[in-house]
């Protein structure tokens, strides 16, 4: 006998425990709204989640699998005078992913052992489906601090960046300290770079410097005004400004904004612009906000799916839903991840922002002294790539994998036929992919792979006039390396739902001994 909910009326029902949904859950509960938070998965984080190895394989199979229940996907029933739209979580979720394929690689020529080995150490992996970092100064970090959620989380600094060009990897000087200690660039280049970085940090105060370039590309500003060229130019564009598309599409102001937000992040937590979460980034942060929600009375049910959404035909408003136990639950608002939406709201769109991703488990670090977390960037056309390819390397120190294992997260804007095609050349420069083909050329220094998963990840956009206005749709993860846009979006949704209310104010802090605030 399934356990039924005692309370069946809520201010807000939230479907999915992804990043945006979880922030909203915390924010809404914090100001006294009653919240019911459901997830069809048995883990937190939805498409933003971090999975152990076994979960990752199950997830992969589920994405690859054929859904048998596809018979009646646009079926429409009526329940108590309301339009009941059927949901199809598994199938809709599949829509967000494509060209998924994985491979195990032999260690000591024994390929059979590898899955067993990885499954044995499965629980020591926390593999992010949409790996992201937290800029040391920005929307998310301020929210983590002001809301107190940061207390539940642990981070490490990501302070090493490498760039690939001319068949070598160079450490990129990103901060003043890096520029000072870097030995691969000349004194003059150090000066040019510092001149630009100093300007960009505070560019709005010297408009004369970039005034003539506002209509031109950011690259033109760097070349003409700051005389930055060659390797250094690539380093600025793709590792400091962190451009993830074609640099020519970025104009001066966009470039300066991106550069500035990077530079502002430096120096707050040591010599790093980004923090990476321990135990995986996505679901740890999401869970932190869920914890706030729970503290303020929110109710949680994982592994709990939804059958129907109920819509009042006259007002075209969402009124409630029917869950897996056929229990009817009503609420004023629905916050939902796209995966829970009835299929009729969704139309496949080829313009959806699509990212090719790979998760690769290897046996050695890719760069010496690269620390617990590092970023490697391939500028366009360096490995037959149209767009920059980024590689995040995490070590056991980030609690992402066991000792003596390293995890690589590759990503790039989708371009070719498959995720693997987009990323394999970049991967090939870092590790011994061709281990079987020719024993002689296997380099001892390069790491060997154990497992690689390739997939495309779409950021779906839903815009149907039929969708009731009291349904708030939380976006999929975007292609960026941070949570900034998503955080802004969460705040905007909150302000739309609860105008005038404070967004995640600090809760009472048990450690707070400020005697002067009564």
């Amino acid at each position: 006998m399934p356990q039924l909910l005692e309370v069946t009326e809520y201010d807000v029902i939230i479907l999915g425990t992804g990043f945006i949904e979880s922030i909203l859950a915390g924010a809404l509960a914090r100001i006294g709204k009653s919240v019911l938070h459901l997830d069809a998965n048995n883990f937190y984080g939805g498409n933003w989640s971090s999975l152990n190895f076994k979960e990752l394989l199950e997830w992969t199979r589920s994405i690859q699998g054929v859904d048998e229940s596809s018979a009646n996907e646009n079926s429409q029933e009526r329940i108590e005078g309301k339009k009941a739209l059927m949901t199809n979580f598994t199938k809709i979720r599949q829509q967000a992913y494509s060209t998924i394929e994985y491979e195990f690689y032999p260690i000591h020529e024994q390929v059979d052992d590898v899955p067993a080995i990885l499954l044995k150490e499965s629980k020591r992996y926390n593999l992010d489906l949409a790996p992201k970092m937290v800029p040391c100064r920005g929307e998310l970090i301020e929210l983590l601090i002001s809301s107190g959620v940061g207390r539940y989380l642990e981070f490490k600094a990501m302070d090493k960046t490498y760039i690939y060009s001319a068949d070598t990897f160079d450490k990129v000087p990103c901060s003043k300290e890096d520029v000072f200690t870097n030995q691969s660039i000349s004194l003059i280049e150090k000066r040019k770079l510092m001149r630009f970085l100093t300007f960009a940090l505070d560019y709005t105060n010297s408009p004369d410097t970039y005034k003539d370039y506002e209509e031109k590309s950011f690259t033109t500003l760097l070349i003409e005004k700051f005389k930055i060229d060659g390797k250094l130019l690539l380093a600025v564009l793709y590792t400091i400004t962190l451009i993830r598309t074609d640099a020519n599409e970025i104009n001066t102001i966009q470039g300066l904004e991106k550069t500035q937000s990077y530079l502002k992040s430096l120096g707050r937590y040591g010599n790093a612009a980004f923090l990476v979460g321990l135990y995986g980034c996505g679901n740890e942060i999401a869970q932190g906000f869920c914890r706030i929600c729970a503290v303020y009375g929110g109710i949680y049910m994982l592994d709990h799916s939804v059958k129907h959404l109920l819509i009042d035909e006259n007002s075209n408003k969402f009124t409630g839903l029917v869950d897996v136990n056929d229990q009817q639950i009503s609420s004023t608002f629905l916050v939902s991840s796209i995966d829970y939406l009835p299929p009729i709201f969704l139309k496949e769109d080829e313009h959806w922002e699509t990212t090719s991703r790979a998760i690769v488990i290897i046996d050695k670090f890719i760069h010496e002294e690269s620390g617990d977390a590092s970023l490697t960037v391939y500028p366009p056309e360096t490995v037959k790539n149209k767009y920059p390819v980024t590689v995040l390397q995490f070590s056991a120190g980030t609690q992402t994998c066991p000792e003596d294992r390293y995890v690589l997260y590759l990503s790039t804007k989708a371009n070719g036929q498959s995720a693997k095609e987009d990323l394999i050349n970049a991967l090939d420069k870092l590790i011994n992919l061709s281990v079987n083909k020719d024993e002689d050329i296997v380099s001892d220094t390069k790491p060997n792979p154990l497992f690689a998963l390739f997939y495309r990840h779409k950021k779906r956009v839903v815009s149907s006039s039929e969708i009731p206005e009291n349904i708030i749709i939380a976006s999929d993860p975007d292609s960026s390396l941070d949570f900034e846009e998503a955080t802004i979006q969460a705040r905007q949704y909150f302000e739309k739902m609860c105008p005038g209310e404070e967004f995640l104010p600090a809760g009472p802090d048990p450690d707070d001994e400020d005697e002067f605030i009564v």
Partner: protein
Amino acid sequence: MHGRKRVKPTAEVEKLRKEKEASKIKEYNGIVAACLEKKNKCEFDNEAFILTTKILSQNPDFYTIWNFRRSILLNEISEDCSEEEKQQKFSSELLFLQEVFRHNPKSYWIFNHRQWCLDTMPNPDWKSELDLVSKMLDMDARNFHGWNYRRYVISKLSCIDSNALNLSKTEFDFTTAKINQNFSNYSAWHQRSKLLPKLVEDEQLGDQGKKPLIDQEFELVKSAFYTDPDDQSAWLYHWWLIGREIRHISILGAYYDSQNYQIILAFDDEIGMLTPFQVAYKNDTSQLNIVEGHWRSVSGSSDVDRMHGSVWIFTLNIESGFNELFVTVKPEWIVPSNSEVKLVSNIQMHCQLPEQNKDTLILMPPQTVAENTTILSTASRFREDILPMTMHERINLLKREIATVKELQEIEPESKWCLQTLLILLRELKYISELNTEESKNIDEEVITICGQLINIDKMRTKRFEDLRSRAIFETATNNLIQVSPNAQQEIIFRDNRLFMSEKSQLPTFTLTNRNLTIIPTPSILLHIRILDLSYNKLTSTIFLSNLIHLQEADLRDNCISSINGVNNLRFLRVLNVQSNLIESWEAVRNGFVKWQGGECKVYVSGNSFINESDGKKLKWEKEMDKIEFCY
């Protein structure tokens, strides 16, 4: 921690805060009173000890209480304490200090007390102290108290550790690590400057072995100032690496005035006289016999002042004629004007009176004889502490650094540190090398340009750069008065032997007008000048004139002079023009002529703010000034 805005608390919060504070203050004052009473009564008991703990936890800067605490501790351990008990006592004291440290990492008294404890306790653990101070510097790498304490700990460790070489090396690496984290760290660079000489010495590197090490330092600091040319700490270390060579004081010349039985001796810098220079004549058997007399400098009015200056007069006690006299000056007899200059060896001067024109005063090129001729020869060594160099190597190094800094200056034309470093490098180059007139002039020209830039860029230090520029302008202008003699000594070449010629145009003349001069750096060079024109400059004082003892006419129109001084001993002065200056009272003019020793003299004073016609007429002048004629 800088640049944070202060948030003004609301009135209510402020009131609550004050009330809370008032009760705390009352409580604290009570404890202090009780403690001081015990101190006055010399009660070194445990109760007093607890009181000091309470006070110092809150206010570690109360040094009287620390003193009292030490008295209590000493009192306790003197009463037949075992070594272990003593050790125990001080260990807990160190723990207490560690706790106080946390809240006050920058209190002199805490460090003082800690050092006292360690010096007093039976078995101090220096290794753990080193760990402690490392931790402190991890928390704040720029806490100079921490660095200072570190040096103390290291000095103790090096006494007990035979492997001191390793210590210098690890300490040196420690500063490298701190500098790599953030090179804007005066303390770390300073520590490095203390360690480098030790490292060089410990590793017993030959001169060839030292060079890569020192070059590496130059590379490191270059990387720092190319990364951030506005960061002063790196530049200061660069300046230290370059070093300042001691500049040699030289004697410009001397002559014998047979009419007045005087020897006149000119240095190129001001010196103080500790022991009178020796004057002697040669008797028939060529032996030197001392000539009695007394020395005084021409500048200054009081007797103290007269033992300090650049032009010196020796008056013979006996009025007898000598054809030649010998003057000996030894380094230990003089006090240089500052630590960067010194007289390097004994100098003997030979002043000869020519056969003819015995009644006429004639300035002669002095015959300078240096006892030790190696002063500036090839054996010279520079930067003995880190990298001994020959002059040739030194010049190459300076030129290399000038090129590097100039390259940076081209990208950063507004960087004041860049320009100032160039000034330092150019000055070093000029003073150490045997430059020909052309090279020396080029350096001066460059210095003049750089000073001009710095005057515009660094407004807070305008005057300083104006003075530096004046020096360069003056040195260029007097270049033709100086010639390098065969024995490498600089001498005035007295081209004019016509001091008493009647025609003005033929008298020794020096003209330097409209060049923004603020100072006359070495007036002794103008010793023989009779006609001086320094009009249209920015001179603020006339005191330098006291060195120009043959001066007849001085034109100082349009300067920034506010009073007249240094002229009362100029016996030949006939015309002094101070028109259009900043003199504001008659007093400021008159005081300059007190004890006037010369003859008739015209003083042009119009164009100063104190001048109006009625004042001039009604003022009565003292009798001794009846030779002074004021003109408008």
